[in-house]
């Protein structure tokens, strides 16, 4: 019937045993699991955030590298263009100088040839004049004595 009996103490012991059992077997492990999962989730979120930041950084880095490479190639191209132009200009100048040199040499040669031909002609004319005069005078002109005269004549012919 309705009464407080010794069962009270038995139930106190059973209840206390159950409380400590549940604390050790159910409450503790479950909370540990929940904490573990919480930690894992927050770690995962942090890792994702970190990954996204790293990706952004990498993209930025790649873009910078690409711009750099573009700049470099542009520079290289400009350099090559300039070098080619320089080479061409130099070659052109060289050719002009060489041509002029050749033309000048040829002109000089021609001038020399003309001068020497003139000289030859003059000498021959002088000789012819002397021979003619000899013949006219029917005697030998002392070439040595009249050399200065001949030379004068030759100079005049020139």
């Amino acid at each position, binding site marked *: 019937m309705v*009464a407080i009996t010794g*069962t009270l103490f038995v139930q106190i012991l059973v209840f206390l045993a*159950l409380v400590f*059992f549940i604390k050790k*077997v159910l409450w503790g492990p479950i909370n540990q699991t*929940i904490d573990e999962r919480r930690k894992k989730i927050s770690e995962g979120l942090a890792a994702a955030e970190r990954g996204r930041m790293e990706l952004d950084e990498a993209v930025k880095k790649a873009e910078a590298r690409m711009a750099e490479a573009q700049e470099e190639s542009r520079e290289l191209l400009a350099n090559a263009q300039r070098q080619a132009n320089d080479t061409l200009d130099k070659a052109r100048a060289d050719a002009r100088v060489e041509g002029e040199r050749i033309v000048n040499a040829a002109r000089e040669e021609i001038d020399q040839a003309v001068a020497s031909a003139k000289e030859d002609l003059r000498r021959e004319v002088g000789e012819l004049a002397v021979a003619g005069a000899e013949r006219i005078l029917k005697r030998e002109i002392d070439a040595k004595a009249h050399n200065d005269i001949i030379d004068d004549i030759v100079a005049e012919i020139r």
Partner: protein
Amino acid sequence: MANSGGGSAEYITHHLTDWCAGCTADHKPGGLVDFSVFTLDLIIVGLVCAAIVALFSLFVRKRLTAEEPGALQAVVEAGVEYVSDQVGQVFHKRNDFVGALAVAIFLWVSLMNLADIIPVDLVPGVLGGIGHLFGADHVFFRIVPTAALDTPFAMALVVFVVMVYYQFRANGPGGYAKRFLTHPYGKWAAPANILTTFIDDVSKPVSLALRLFGNMFAGELIFALLAMLTLSALAPPSGMVAVWAPLHFLGGFIWSVFHLLIVFLQAFIFAVLSIVYLGMATQTDDH
């Protein structure tokens, strides 16, 4: 049924009599308080329920995983987190002992209350039949420990002791004494204060225990009363059984559904109020 006498009072009395050790000749304890008596039936049911809770805990722990919890783990985790939240709200920090205490109360009380849903005459009837084979003329066996005083008071006493311990820890012996002397009417009304504070403290475990006991005792009694509808028509066999038996089953069904709510509600109330009382005990008094 071991009930051979027939009278309705005897039927009810039979249902409220324990299988006990140390009882008087009429299967009753010596008085309202008799610590030499042990109600073996309630101890056995209590132990069976505690064992089921313990096995369930082991079963859950064995399958715990942080990565992919199953349905069972999700439910248990939700419950534990709910209790954790309640404890956190009252204590403002983690308290594993109170959490485990509340979970233990809820699970154990729920299971013991659930025994009330088992048809009232089933277990006593079967055990009575077995008893007859061994020559016992009366087998008494109640199956709802929470419908007796001992088990609710056992839990309430544990809560009370922890409550007093927390009050001591939070206020110190001086603060504890001061609370008795000056709370709630000020320092000039010490006798009234002592009385009021004493009632204030003691009423908590008493109300915890009596609320659970009252609900479950009444529930058990109503099942027994409903069963008497049929029995009254059978005692001298009469045609009224055609009226009372369907009514008995309909009433039994409705009351079972309603009682199922009470079963879990009372377990829940006991657990949550324990948390609240223990939380109040940790707050330092600045009245």
